[in-house]
């Protein structure tokens, strides 16, 4: 496990022999992140990303969350996952869950908090459990069908311009539909999520 602790990352990378050119930018980004200079951190992680660091995409997504750009963060996490399948890091999964939560994607948030909880330490695990309980309480049955409609509307509107974000909305709608008593628009949501998640669509943006 490689927890996302920018200071530790900076020390490890700085002490290592000269590596790929992206590493210096990862260090600079981690320093800026630690100093809460999130705009500078985002730029450095983006540069590292452009220089070939798949890891930097995850950090850029976390930085977007810190900048209050929740939907962009959700989108960036999805794109980061495509570049490198797993975060491999409980803390990055927590950030991803927080991004989903801030974007009102509650089941997405629950999924990532659950994944992080299974690997989290004794301090973080109870907090994650409390968050998941709060999500469970917030998911009131009468709000599920309107939420499905809302997410499918958003997914349809974004499927061409921002397919990664549209996928997140479609997946949320599909997940909510399984909890709807009448399986409200489940086929539609599942089909849209499947199409947006297909390799052809994944190449967009």
């Amino acid at each position, binding site marked *: 496990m490689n927890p996302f602790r920018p200071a530790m990352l900076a020390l490890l990378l700085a002490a290592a022999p000269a590596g790929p*050119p992206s590493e210096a930018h990862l260090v600079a980004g981690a320093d800026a992140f630690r100093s809460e200079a999130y*705009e*500078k951190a*985002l*730029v450095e992680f*983006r*540069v590292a990303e*452009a*220089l070939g660091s798949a890891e930097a995409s995850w950090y850029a997504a976390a930085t977007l969350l810190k*900048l*209050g*750009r*929740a*939907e*962009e963060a959700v989108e960036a996490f999805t794109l980061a996952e495509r570049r490198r399948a797993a975060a491999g890091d409980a803390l990055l999964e927590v950030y991803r869950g927080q991004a989903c939560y*801030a*974007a*009102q994607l509650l089941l997405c948030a629950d999924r990532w908090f659950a994944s992080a909880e299974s690997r989290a330490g004794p301090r973080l695990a109870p907090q994650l459990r409390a968050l998941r309980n709060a999500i469970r309480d917030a998911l009131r049955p009468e709000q599920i069908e*309107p939420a499905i409609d*809302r997410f499918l*509307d*958003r997914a349809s509107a974004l499927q061409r*311009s921002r397919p990664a974000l549209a996928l997140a909305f479609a997946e949320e709608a599909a997940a909510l539909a399984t909890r709807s008593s009448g399986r409200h628009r489940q086929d539609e949501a599942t089909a849209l999520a499947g199409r947006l998640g297909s390799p052809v669509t994944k190449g967009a943006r």
Partner: protein
Amino acid sequence: MTGALLGLLVAAADPCTAPIPPGGGDPHEAQIYVQVGDAERARGNVGAAREAYRAALARDPRSADARRGLAAACAPEADPVQAGADALEAGDPEDALRALANARGRGNDRPVDLLEGIARYQLGQDTLAIPLLESARGDPATAESASFFLGLIALRRGDGDRASRLFDQAGRAIGLEDAARQLTRMAQQEGHLVLSALTELVYDTNVALRPDGAPTTLPGPDGSVGLTLQGLVRPWGTPGPYLRVEGQLSKQLTLSQLDLLGGAVALGFRLPGPTGSLTGEYAYNYQALDGRGYLADHRVFLGGSLLTGRFLWGAAYAAHFETYRWEALSDQSGVRQVLELDAGLLPGGGVRLTAGYAGTWDATRVDPLSYLEHGPIVELVWSSGPLTVGTRGAIAWRGYLAPDPNYADTSYTTREDTRYLATTWVDVGLGARWSVRGTVRFLRVSSNVPDLNATEWVFIGSVAWTGAVL
């Protein structure tokens, strides 16, 4: 000196004006920073774009792309979202829509959805506003405001239940709490079938408006208890026709000859618009005193209001076709017309100040009882949360058309009265359906026939329940 130091500090903190240290980093990476800057600027993240262009210039001070990008990112570009908000604040939703047309695709679009939804709502384009406001509800930062305006739309459509739920959600936001609470109460009064009940306890110092010098054998002070029940049916919500049925009972504590039993049926149409409303109504009202038919009144009413900026303009007209059933009062039968025009100022803080002018033309069967009355009205109302306090004052100059033979022995030929009216009230909402109110009314009649001068004080305490059943 201090000013110069402060200036240097500010300049150092501002990425647009702070000097760029040259030679930092690999010059070959400058173009990558420029690309990152361009991408962030396109997403609306100007702060990150500035950082990226500065980093590019630090590596390659001659980079024209970086310099151009930094200049563009630092240009005092009009923020379309702020421009839209400003236009809405100024009461110009069409201008807001023009400003917001270019505001999307710069990151989080939810605030844009909210502002455009509000503008569409203000223009009466509810169908377009709803999906935008629903989208804005998806962001915690805009959810409460969006719920508030969705509630207003539901209210406008006569869906009181949905409006009530939305206002409950909107009430979580600081700043919207008071308005949402009041609108929740209003929403409870919307619906296809709304019932209300009002009970009141009244003490009147001069029930029959006995002149100051009249013998005390005439009816004087008395108390009463009253009950009014009302049902309002709106089959198609609002806008649409409505039917109102009302029953009224008032039992005097001592003067049973003034016990009142009344009923009314009204058929009307309410047409609400984005900044005003229009109501037309026909009503039939019948009253009995002491168990005997007293007054039958056919009433035609037309009223409307229009909101322009901070001003609320109102007009109301009513024509009463009255028939007094008692032989002794039959000469008072006739047509009574009332017209009121007013203008209200809404300075904010829950305050409404209204000034207007009202006139009444009562054409009875005989000229000595017919009169023309007119005069100014001033009203001040303040609402804060569940509390509403109001006061209203009016002066009415009433001139009768012909000398009254009942006063032929006086030197006055035609009766002329000046009527001073004042009312003040406090209303407290207890939840969405219940409210209590205390009212004090004062009337002073000053006539050119001194024997007719009179004073009346009325004290009323009431409890009301109103709720949508369907």
